[in-house]
């Protein structure tokens, strides 16, 4: 019996010929990530116990992207703790200031994750790196602290679900709509504890940026990881990133075992809007009532890459943001920001009346830089719309792709570019 790509990566890192779903294994870890919300817990736990030996500092990545530039004194203290920890243990990959981007935009761009890697991160959207053909999953601060000391962690080998996407894409249907549609179909726990593997002609046609958007939201279906087998696009992306380590290419065997296979004809999928308060609460943008909005957020680890900004700029070119709406744009990294500037996208956003915010998680999780007041509504390219996610518990978040976000900013209500 063959293995899935997820099983193969786990087996290699467990030093085993074969693993099967349900098995608990001890694995070595290539990249161990934490951010300014989760790293402080890990660091304090180690320091409290007097554990001072960090044997693999080059495998640790610390990104101060959540509450930065520091939103208040406790946030500043947390980043200071990370900075001092990085210095003390010679951790080369600590990012802040002008080097910081949203972790899941930043790491692939800098070549810190390569195909075949096993990555754990104290951030639930660590599953993003699956678009590179890596096994990547989110954990908590204690798991990360343990991995920093041991260089390994334990995993339960997940069952795999296969999603085969074929058909013709609607012009405004992006990777975001495909993953929202899937979450809408299977529910927020539809892939709980499972690997979600995406394949088929539609996946091959997607750019790397759109693939990252899809694997990023695997967690929103409860998955352990999302994964796409590497192809020429993946390898070209990795080469361009200047990755120092060699990629290891794994693909699923034809006789691998799947818990379930979903064949999805994307031809019928229209641009999606996930209504409050679950990402699975999806509808077609063409079938919704008029929902007036106060804010639009374009950015995040889901949709903060250059192609996302290009989509938004295409709609906003020569148009003005509705007077009631605040349009906030968060380029995902310094590189994305620079590129957007070079391509003239920043000018388009400014002329439309948008606000350019620094590369950071911003208001996605209600941290800062655009938190919502009571009863305000936001159309957002982010990934979660739980109660109170972006601010006051009576505020509402509608999850959309960058085209829909941009056209909604112009209209003042949620709509698609072809309806402007």
């Amino acid at each position, binding site marked *: 019996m063959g293995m899935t790509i997820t099983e193969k990566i786990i087996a290699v890192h467990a030093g085993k010929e074969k693993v099967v779903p349900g098995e608990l294994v001890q694995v070595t870890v290539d990249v161990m990530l934490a951010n300014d*919300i989760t790293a402080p817990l890990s660091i304090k736990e180690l320091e409290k116990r007097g554990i001072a030996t960090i044997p693999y500092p080059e495998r640790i990545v610390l990104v101060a992207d959540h509450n930065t530039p520091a939103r208040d004194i406790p946030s500043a203290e947390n980043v200071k703790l990370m900075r001092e920890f990085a210095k003390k243990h010679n951790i080369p990959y600590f990012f802040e200031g002008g080097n910081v981007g949203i972790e899941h935009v930043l790491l692939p761009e800098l070549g810190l994750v390569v195909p075949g890697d096993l990555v754990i991160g104290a951030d*639930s959207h660590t599953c993003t790196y699956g678009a590179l053909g890596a096994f990547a999953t989110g954990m*908590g601060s204690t*798991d990360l602290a343990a991995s920093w000391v041991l260089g390994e962690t334990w995993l339960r080998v997940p069952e795999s679900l296969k999603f085969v996407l074929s058909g013709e894409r609607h012009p405004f249907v992006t990777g975001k709509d495909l993953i929202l549609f899937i979450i809408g179909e299977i529910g*927020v*726990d539809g892939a709980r504890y499972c690997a979600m593997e995406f394949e088929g002609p539609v996946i091959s046609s997607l750019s790397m940026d759109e693939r990252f958007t899809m694997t990023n939201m695997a967690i929103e279906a409860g998955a352990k990881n999302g994964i796409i087998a590497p192809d020429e696009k993946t390898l070209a992306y990795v080469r361009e990133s200047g990755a120092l380590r060699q990629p290891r290419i794994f693909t699923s065997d034809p006789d691998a075992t799947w818990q379930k296979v979903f064949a999805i004809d994307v031809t019928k999928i229209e641009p999606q809007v996930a209504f409050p308060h679950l990402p699975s609460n999806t509808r077609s943008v063409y079938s919704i009532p008029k929902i007036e909005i106060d804010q639009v957020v374009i950015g995040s680890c889901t949709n903060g890459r250059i192609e996302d900004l290009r989509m938004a700029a295409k709609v906003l070119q020569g148009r003005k943001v509705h007077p009631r709406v605040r349009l906030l744009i968060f380029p995902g990294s310094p590189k994305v920001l620079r590129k957007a500037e070079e391509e003239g996208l920043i000018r388009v956003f400014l002329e439309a009346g948008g606000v350019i915010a620094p590369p950071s998680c911003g208001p996605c999780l*209600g941290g800062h830089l655009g938190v919502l007041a009571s009863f305000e509504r936001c159309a957002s390219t982010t990934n*979660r719309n739980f*109660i109170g996610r972006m601010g006051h*518990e009576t505020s509402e978040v509608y999850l959309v792709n960058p085209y829909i976000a941009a056209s909604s900013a112009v209209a003042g209500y949620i709509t698609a570019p072809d309806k402007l």
Partner: protein
Amino acid sequence: MIRGKAVVLGDNVDTDGIIPARYLTSTDPKELAKHCMEGLDPHFLERITPGATILVAGKNFGCGSSREHAPLAIKGCGIVAVIAASFARIFFRNAINIGLPILESEEAAFRIREGDMVSIDLATGEIHNETTGEVFKAQPFPPLLQEIIAAGGLMNLVEKRVRTNS
């Protein structure tokens, strides 16, 4: 043996509901506890008795973010155990790693009502609803997780391993 009155929650309780992100600059369980479930029910703390409350939730409890502050807040406000029909996987790991007792039982989650007196035998996974007399059996943990639980959390094990090696 753990004993407490049941406080019942629904399906898909997410980590933003358990502890809104604006409080995550703190790592102190007591501080986090002040805002436990604030996003979900502003009067939540009035429903619990520290040291004598068991949370009973539906499916996919703890979905969303990886924030360990969520089980820390629950533990910090004196909730002695969480029973759910199912747990989101990161929350599951986090709870075990920090020593918050959790039990998975669809039947118990479905049958226990707000205010029922519940006792739990962690060694056997038996959940006893003293109010109704019903007994439920939770999913047993694999040996590795039992080892983490018995050690009182993952870092106790890690610390032991580090000290033995050096």
